[in-house]
């Protein structure tokens, strides 16, 4: 489904290590070879609303074949670039419409063993206004967050893959979508 083509892995690894406020890397033009959108058309989405978010998404355990192929083709490269030895991934499809958001959180939970988080942005019939991935710089004292500051915004461009480290300081949010439609696949990579 994805043929990544030649990439300068040393440059990607250097970008990962140098990234602030925590390690992340952006890969543009991760274009599928098959008709990904056709696969996703068969997957229903429902509205999810909780304290941290409002969005539409596919069921948590759906897209089994697609996520297996995604992990098979991306995990080796990401393991080399990030130094995190990952083999499998989960995946959900997300649709953010105007007023949808995901408030700041870290993705880190003891016992879940999430090593890398990813968001893979897809073409939209109406490009989103807002919906950027925003990364925060956190200051810790005795394990407690004592200061937070927005540090980086990453636009949701079609065929862009963003991968970032999961840790106690990987604070991030999806800024509210103010117009258009933001479509993505997202989830985590595991060992």
């Amino acid at each position: 489904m994805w043929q990544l083509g030649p990439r300068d892995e040393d440059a990607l690894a250097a970008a990962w290590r140098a990234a602030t406020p925590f390690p992340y890397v952006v890969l543009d033009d991760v274009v599928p070879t098959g008709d990904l959108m056709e696969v996703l058309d068969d997957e229903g989405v429902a509205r999810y609303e909780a304290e941290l978010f409002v969005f539409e998404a596919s069921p948590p355990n759906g897209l089994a074949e697609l996520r297996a192929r995604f992990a098979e083709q991306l995990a080796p490269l990401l393991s080399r670039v990030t130094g995190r030895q990952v083999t499998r991934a989960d995946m959900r499809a997300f649709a953010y419409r105007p007023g949808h958001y995901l408030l700041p959180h870290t993705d880190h939970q003891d016992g879940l063993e999430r090593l890398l988080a990813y968001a893979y942005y897809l073409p939209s019939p109406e490009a989103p206004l807002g919906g950027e991935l925003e990364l925060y710089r956190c200051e810790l004292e005795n394990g407690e967050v004592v200061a937070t500051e927005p540090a980086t915004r990453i636009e949701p461009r079609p065929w862009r893959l963003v991968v970032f480290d999961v840790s106690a300081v990987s604070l991030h949010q999806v800024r509210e979508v103010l117009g258009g439609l933001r479509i993505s696949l997202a989830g985590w990579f595991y060992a």
Partner: protein
Amino acid sequence: MNLEELLATRSALIVPSGITARFAGFTRYALVDRGSYEWVDVPVDPRIGELVATHTGMRRQCIASRVIRLVPGDFILARHDTSPTGLEVVIDISPAPCAAEVHYRQHGQVFFRVPCEPGTAALVPRYPSVTSNHTYLSKLATVEVVRWVCLFA
């Protein structure tokens, strides 16, 4: 949680307050893993004590009085809540109604929602098993939300 707590929390109610007020001197809170809002501590107001006495049949002592203001993009998460014990009174003094709520939860389940309706007050029994969060105020909104939150012993 015991049966007394369960029943008490289910007695939460919303009543007309007729209280309006304006405040200044807000401080912004911005540890965004917990919340994003403005606050100011203000003197206890006897009108709120009267409101509590009218609806509970008891005179209680106010032990905390804070005004919270949310502008578009703001929110307060449950992890920022201190889970106090007492009777919490939320007076809505917003300039206009809007799509924003306070949610009260017990063991993760929302049991009471307080809409943004100026001129109303919510009376909610608080126990350590109860947390609250102020829902995200959309940037598409054109108003601010102002809540006067008091705790009575």
